[in-house]
């Protein structure tokens, strides 16, 4: 029996995790990954990698929880493997100047704790709402190259090529998996995918071992320790495509984060980076579709529109993709 040919478009966190999930769950499939950018140049490489369902659009809440839990469990496995996956368990705090609800995902992380108003105001008089939890931080610039190596080890092919539309991926495919992130806007095309530009600064500050997020609208900022640096952020510039680092913005991020944690003033600045979060108002698009190529209808599974939580959702979504590939290729036998 000829192996089912699966072509994955995209080699970011969504694409490579989907490729690995297909290869692991469906060993009789052959997998080809086509992308024009690879780590360290993907959107995920810019991300701080904190497990927290953040900026998810109007996705179905049950789906988000399922996908986020799938990723949580996978990070746990990577952590326990003893290999360097760039995964650490990090405690930390989130505060805001406006009242809010306890997030729906609060029972997934370890030790989720809501602060009382007076506890919040001990931190800063402007905070009225806050909570602490302990979560995984996974650094894509460390785990993406490992995922790519697994794809190749398991016989998958990696092709560096820029596609102009999705059907260009289809001629040699039985199933196309579309993990093109912000690229979905052109490839699908899906004009509801818009960039929410994020700029971050990376510093060396090994003494920072917990995360701190200020979710207040006017003073939004975060400090998130990674394996080999601390990520300071950030911006949420909707509709902005500019991938160049804005020096003014970088200074503002540093200033704001030094206010949150004054010890950062001594930190060595390693660099700045910009990524385009693939925001989709309707939320994550993970569903079946069809693309036509020379008269043949090729099934597509879309897996894009992860907005601000591509890392948090990646493994749960990848599993879902693999299950859908499996049912698509299941034909009854005469």
């Amino acid at each position, binding site marked *: 029996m000829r192996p089912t040919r699966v072509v994955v478009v995209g080699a970011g966190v969504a694409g490579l995790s989907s490729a690995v999930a297909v290869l692991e*769950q469906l060993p009789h499939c052959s997998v080809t990954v086509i992308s024009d950018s690879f780590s360290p140049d993907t959107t995920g490489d810019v991300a701080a990698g904190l497990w927290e369902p953040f900026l998810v659009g109007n996705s179905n809440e049950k789906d988000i929880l399922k996908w986020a839990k799938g990723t949580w469990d996978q990070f746990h496995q990577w952590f326990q493997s003893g290999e360097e996956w760039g995964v650490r368990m990090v405690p930390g705090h989130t505060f805001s100047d406006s009242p809010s609800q306890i997030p729906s995902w609060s029972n997934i992380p370890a030790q989720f704790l809501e602060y009382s108003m007076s506890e919040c105001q001990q931190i800063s008089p402007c905070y009225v709402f806050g909570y602490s939890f302990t979560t995984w931080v996974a650094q894509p610039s460390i785990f993406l190259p490992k995922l790519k190596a697994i794809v190749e080890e398991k016989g998958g092919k990696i092709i560096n090529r820029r596609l102009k539309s999705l059907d260009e991926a289809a001629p040699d495919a039985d199933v196309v998996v579309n993990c093109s992130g912000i690229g979905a806007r052109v490839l699908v095309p899906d004009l509801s995918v818009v960039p929410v530009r994020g700029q971050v600064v990376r510093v060396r500050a090994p003494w920072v071992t917990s995360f701190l997020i200020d979710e207040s609208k006017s003073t939004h900022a975060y400090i998130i320790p990674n394996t080999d640096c601390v990520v300071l952020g950030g911006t949420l510039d909707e509709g902005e495509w500019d991938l160049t680092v804005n020096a003014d913005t970088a200074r503002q991020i540093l200033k704001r984060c030094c206010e949150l944690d004054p010890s950062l003033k001594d930190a060595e600045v390693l660099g700045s980076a910009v990524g385009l979060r693939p925001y989709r108002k309707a939320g994550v698009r993970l569903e079946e579709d069809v693309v036509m190529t020379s008269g043949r209808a090729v099934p597509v599974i879309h897996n894009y529109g992860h907005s601000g939580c591509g890392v948090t959702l990646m493994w749960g979504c990848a599993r879902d993709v693999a*299950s859908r590939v*499996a*049912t698509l290729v299941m*034909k*009854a*036998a*005469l």
Partner: protein
Amino acid sequence: MALATSYTNESEQTNACLALKSWLRCHPKYRSLVPDEGAAGKPLAPTLAPKSLLDEVQALYLQAANTSGTVDAGVQGGLGVLYNLLGDYDKAVDCFNAALSADPTDSRLWNKLGATLANSNRSAEAVPAYQRALQLSPGFIRCRYNLGIACINLKCHRQVPASAAEHFLSALNLQAAGRGLEEKFSRTAVSDNLWSILRVCLPPLDLTRLLPALNNRDLAALNAAFKDLPSGPPPS
């Protein structure tokens, strides 16, 4: 006919057509319909058959159906396989129904009817056909595999019912016991498919703890785990 069916399952159009033709040629009643072919023509690609070959085989079978007087289950079954090759599932369903009216005790025909219905998005109708096939031949591995797929598809690709996993598991057990009904169907391919699909069933059933057993293809451990499950009706 079994050969033609297997080629059809593997999407090898040309080989399936040639097998269908040689079934007629070997049949005492229809031998005269098939013209003698001298030296073999130029070799054809096994997958995509030229339209002329598909048309020729279709014409031969229609002619055979007309000459036989009464309904011949073999001819109608062959025609059903051919319509599957052509992707005309509605006509294929008609043919298998006609064949079954002549011979309702052929479990293979019931499975072919079920598979055709399932592959044209009519899984709900496929299930009773599979069940008839399994009543007639409880050891029909391919049919049990198909029934598992239908169970998954009926749940709209989202939730996997425990019954699907049980069908796949019992198919694996039948295969391990060497009690398969069919011989020509590629054993390793079915087996790989069964293991892959069972793997897909486990996470939605909250049975990921069985993944190590699955990776080791440890049938005994899986059987033991499934025996302890509070499950629906056992696979018929």
